[in-house]
């Protein structure tokens, strides 16, 4: 008889690979359902540590078996100590088995960012968003650092130099006609990143725009990516403002933003005007970089088209980037029918017009939006 203690040994690395492979397979399953999962989640403000409970069907290992009610009649083998049902309620955190041994489904907790990674992967923008990490696109602010004795002649501070000369004359009690090198004073400055870069993003949506689950998912994902872009690229502070409108506009929560529907007429200008109004009240363009995403199904009350383009023009002058995005657009949409809108986009490089119909559009919109925005921010 032999006895040995192996409890200090490491765990089996091969089995860890198996666990990883199993996880990858679960992720493949989740990817198929990701649009539905994301539609049910509130993504903004971004809180990656949030846990999300997802019901997963355990991956089936197929074999020939009897119909389950038949199998039940035959009885299940359970070992003696098959758990304490009273205690299990107290278990918390991590991954929770819900239905117990032998069940085909269980609830697993995922961190929200795990789901989001799957989402970004699904939309094929994972790389794009990852590449943003650690980049800062800001014009540097020039900060004066005072006056020094040495420097480049182009930075000569005349006033300080004359003062020095007068002081020298007084001290030596001699007038001098010339400036001598000891008189020269130079301005000194340093390029500094701006410490408080602030951005506000207005997410504006037309209430009547009907969206199915998939569009809903795409819109939500797009909004999330915009916010993520702003946060990742160095804004210290990002304000998010949801606005819903039909004929008149209101600020609302994220939940309402995606949920609300109405059948009434639409005035796109009301949304844009609301944005202008809020900018006036709270967000001076000097202190805030303003971003706007305006989604609509493109159906507008005919009389409003002119107003809308005017309002948009005003907004273009204030905002950093605007994306006017048509979801489920019909042929008579604003983009299709108002040539003025296209003119406006030609005149203002910060207005991006787009359509959102499928996954590829998300990628295209983001790529273009980010490229244009970065260009402007670099100056």
């Amino acid at each position, binding site marked *: *008889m*032999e*006895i*040995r*203690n*192996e*409890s*200090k*040994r490491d*765990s*089996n690395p*091969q*089995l860890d*690979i*198996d*666990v*990883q*492979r*199993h*996880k990858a*397979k679960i992720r493949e399953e989740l990817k198929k359902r990701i649009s539905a999962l994301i539609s049910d989640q509130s993504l903004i403000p971004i809180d990656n540590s949030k846990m999300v409970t997802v019901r997963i069907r*355990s*991956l*089936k*290992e*197929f*074999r*020939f*078996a*009897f*119909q*389950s009610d*038949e*199998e*039940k*009649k*035959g*009885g*299940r*083998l*359970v*070992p*003696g*100590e*098959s*758990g*304490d*049902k009273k*205690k*299990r309620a107290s*278990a918390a955190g*991590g*991954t*929770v*088995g819900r239905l*117990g*041994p032998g069940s085909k489904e*269980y609830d697993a907790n995922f961190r929200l960012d795990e789901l989001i990674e799957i989402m970004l992967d699904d939309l094929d923008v994972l790389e794009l968003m990852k590449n943003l990490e650690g980049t800062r696109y800001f014009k540097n602010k020039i900060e004066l650092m005072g006056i020094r004795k040495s420097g480049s002649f182009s930075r000569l501070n005349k006033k300080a130099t004359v003062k020095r000369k007068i002081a020298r004359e007084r001290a030596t009690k001699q007038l001098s006609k010339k400036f001598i090198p000891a008189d020269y004073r130079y301005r000194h400055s340093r390029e500094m990143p701006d410490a408080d870069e602030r951005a506000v993003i207005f997410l504006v949506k037309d209430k009547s725009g009907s969206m199915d689950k998939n569009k809903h998912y795409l819109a939500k994902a797009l909004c999330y990516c915009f916010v993520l872009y702003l946060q990742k690229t160095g804004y210290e502070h990002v304000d998010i403002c949801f606005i819903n409108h039909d004929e008149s506009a209101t600020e609302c929560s994220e939940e309402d933003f995606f949920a609300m529907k109405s059948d009434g007429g639409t005035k796109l200008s009301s949304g844009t005007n609301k944005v202008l109004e809020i900018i006036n009240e709270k967000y001076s363009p000097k202190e805030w970089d303003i971003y706007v995403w305006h989604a609509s199904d493109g159906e507008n009350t005919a009389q409003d088209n002119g107003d809308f383009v005017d309002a948009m023009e005003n907004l273009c002058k204030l905002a950093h980037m605007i994306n006017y995005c048509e979801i489920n657009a019909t042929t008579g949409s604003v983009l299709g029918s108002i040539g003025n809108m296209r003119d406006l986009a030609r005149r203002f490089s910060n207005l991006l017009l787009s359509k959102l119909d499928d996954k590829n559009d998300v990628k295209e919109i983001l790529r273009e939006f980010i490229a244009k925005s970065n260009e402007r921010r670099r100056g």
Partner: protein
Amino acid sequence: MDNLKALKDWLLKVEEIAKNLGLEFVPQEFVICNNEQMVERQAHHGGYNLYPHWSFGKAKFITRILYDHRFSFLPNEIVINTNPCTAFMLETNPIVDNIMIGGHVYAHNDFFNRNVAFRLNRPELIQTKLKRGSQLIQRCVENPKFGSSRVEKLIDAAHGAFFLFDEHGNHFIDFAIRNFRNLSAIDQEILEVIKALAIHLWPIAETKIMNEGWASYWHFRTLRLLSDKLIETFGADAYHEAIKMHLRVIKMPRSFLDINPYRIGFYTWNKARKELGSEKELFRVRKNYTDEEFLEEFFNNKDGFIHENFIKPFIVENASKRIFVESQLRQMADQYRDNVLKARADKLYPKFDFAIEPLGLVQCLVLRHIFDGRVLDSEMAQGTMKLIHYIWKGPIRLETKSISKRRQHGKYITKDKIIVCNQLGDVEERE
């Protein structure tokens, strides 16, 4: 390491007792392991040298969830059928528990060594064989020419047919290796590895109730024989804790449908002891029976055996206020016996006849279900056929029966049912 030394001394005493009682075992080794390692061994069918496959990852993942949330406890011990026989014990076990586990382990060892179901097992070779196999599979996974996904699908298919036998006990994988033309030599080698594992594990499934009962019978016997010494050394409390653990192991499940093989086995062996008149006779039963004959012969309601040990505790456990009349109780006992007989491994897995028959210009794999009144789960059958299609790569026809919901003359009507998988792997069902 003082503890280890003390434990070793006690386990030597246990070994001595086992030998004197007549158990015939191969050399035994005990391995103390931690919680994580126990979960891993559980996922690897008890601790065999297994090949990489995601299903073991799943097993570990789910085992972890269940233990973390106390749906079930970690086993205090796992014994695998190798030579020398290896047993794993949790480092957190109290020493008295481990002494009792020792008794349990030697009985398993004896059972593996002497029971008829294991006569073809080669416990001295299995670990080496599996290790070589897993190295081969590992090399295939890493070889880009072969590819990890091909290996995975191959193993998926083999696992789909893990306990798939024909009426004469021939394994489906054997049939596949002999008759499937699409398999390369390496494919065949990989399939051999999984078959080796399956046929090594099958006797364990086939004798689950007997084997666990045998081990429980002897661990309890050992505990009683050592009781004076244990109480003297560790105190009465520690001894009672061990008794409590024994009672937990043979606990009555809360659900009438669940079956605890330890409990069934333990009580049935005690009943057999009484009926056969001597302990010596038990060794004959241990040698020549599998669950099938064992339960057939001893698991019945003679002298109210099932009622006393299973129905009554069940009613007590659930604190049922219902009052049962005698005929109901008798009916419950009959039903319980039925349930247990159906839980036998040889009843859990459907059996088929395999054949390859020409179908037009191509060969068709035909699986004829040997119908015993129970209908196949259609979704599982279709999924399995898709897996098998990966190694067969041709049409498959599965012949079984379905039962209509309506009855005629008080009997259910059965109808022929065919599930077909075409050459491309699309599955279709026909009545």
